[in-house]
């Protein structure tokens, strides 16, 4: 008889890849803690099948549409995304047989384009200098003029925060009795709203903190302030703090995660980690949880892991690149 495996496989727990989304590791990062009384934990969303937190959102968006009968077999899906949501949707749509078109800024890293193409998505580019605003506007315009598209619209779809309310937050509460502060990136608002609501229901003293990108001058290509955009799912009253992080600080902390904790995270996660440590500094004791949205593979070509900060500053990467 063959000897038993030391490391057992999951024993058929997941029927397919989509079923393996979620239940990501929560890992303590002891070296980041500024004081013994404060423990810092990272929720490693990079462990999802396509490598980002957006697997949860994409699954929720598609299953919500299926439940409502909004997408018959073969329905074309259209979504504005600068990367991760598109990659997650592409995998799920490929598995489920829905053609996918994504609209994204033309200045995202090459890896994101390659991944989307690999999963069979069609890509429509929007002007990079308009950032995600440009992608949202173009996708909505395409949907207006062509009724054959179904737009899940992560920015306004309650299924996005619900993926976290019914998933991520419950997983955190399974492992920690008390969450003093929860820190996540502010993009669509889904992670912060869904986790924030659930964690505050559990303990209304939990501090919900948003880390947001300080948009570089080159992605501030708005014609007027009236072209601004606030994702409809965001409710600012749920946030206790909202703090911006420069690309420079985000990269510095991405490098620190790698050097001090061996964590190969994406650049937005470095930004979020910097705010988690700042919040931890203000606490005498407690648990601080932050979200690692994705790992670093998709950003390798930007040079942030191999070049020094001075080199990245000199070659314009810190000013130009869009990491969020």
């Amino acid at each position: 008889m063959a000897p038993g495996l030391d490391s057992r496989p999951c024993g058929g727990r997941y029927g397919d890849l989509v079923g393996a989304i979620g239940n990501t590791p929560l890992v303590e990062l002891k070296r980041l803690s500024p004081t013994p009384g404060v423990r810092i934990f990272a929720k490693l969303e990079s462990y999802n099948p396509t490598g980002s937190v957006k697997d949860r959102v994409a699954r929720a968006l598609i299953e919500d549409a299926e439940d409502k009968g909004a997408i018959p077999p073969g329905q074309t899906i259209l979504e504005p995304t600068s990367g991760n949501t598109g990659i997650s949707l592409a995998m799920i749509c490929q598995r489920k047989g829905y053609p996918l078109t994504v609209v994204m800024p033309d200045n995202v890293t090459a890896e994101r384009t390659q991944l989307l193409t690999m999963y069979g998505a069609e890509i429509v580019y929007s002007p990079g200098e308009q950032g995600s605003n440009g992608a949202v506007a173009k996708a909505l315009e395409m949907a207006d003029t062509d009724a054959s598209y179904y737009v899940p619209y992560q920015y306004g779809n309650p299924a996005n925060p619900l993926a976290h309310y019914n998933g991520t937050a419950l997983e955190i509460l399974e492992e920690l009795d008390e969450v003093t502060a929860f820190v996540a990136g502010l993009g669509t608002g889904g992670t912060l709203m869904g986790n924030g609501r659930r964690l505050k229901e559990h303990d209304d003293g939990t501090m919900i903190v948003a880390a947001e990108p300080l948009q570089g001058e080159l992605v501030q290509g708005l014609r007027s302030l009236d072209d601004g955009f606030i994702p409809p799912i965001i409710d600012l009253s749920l946030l206790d703090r909202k703090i911006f992080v420069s690309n420079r600080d985000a990269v510095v902390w991405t490098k620190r995660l790698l050097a001090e904790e061996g964590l190969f995270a994406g650049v937005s996660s470095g930004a979020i980690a910097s705010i988690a440590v700042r919040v931890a500094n203000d606490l005498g004791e407690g648990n601080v949880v932050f979200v690692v949205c994705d790992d670093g593979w998709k950003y390798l070509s930007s040079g942030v892991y191999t070049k020094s900060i001075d080199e990245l500053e000199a070659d314009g990467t810190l000013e130009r690149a869009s990491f969020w």
Partner: protein
Amino acid sequence: MSAIKIPPVLRPSTGGEREVAADGGSVGEVLSSLAEQHPGTKAQLFADDGALNRYVNVYLNDEDVRVLDGLETPVADTDTLVILPAMAGGR
């Protein structure tokens, strides 16, 4: 005096200035001082009811004042206010 960092979209209204110094003990007072110096900014910063324009984010150093005390948030002379347009984030 506090420093106010002006985003590219507002610079046509500040004669191209990237940073403007302004007096005031609160965010609202400092922004009103900016609007007095550069009247073209007023309609962009403030709604008709005097509240902050929906698509204008103002940060005291690096924290969004909407999550602090809004226009009432106290400002010290050494503080920097950063004005940024609300942009879509996320991926």
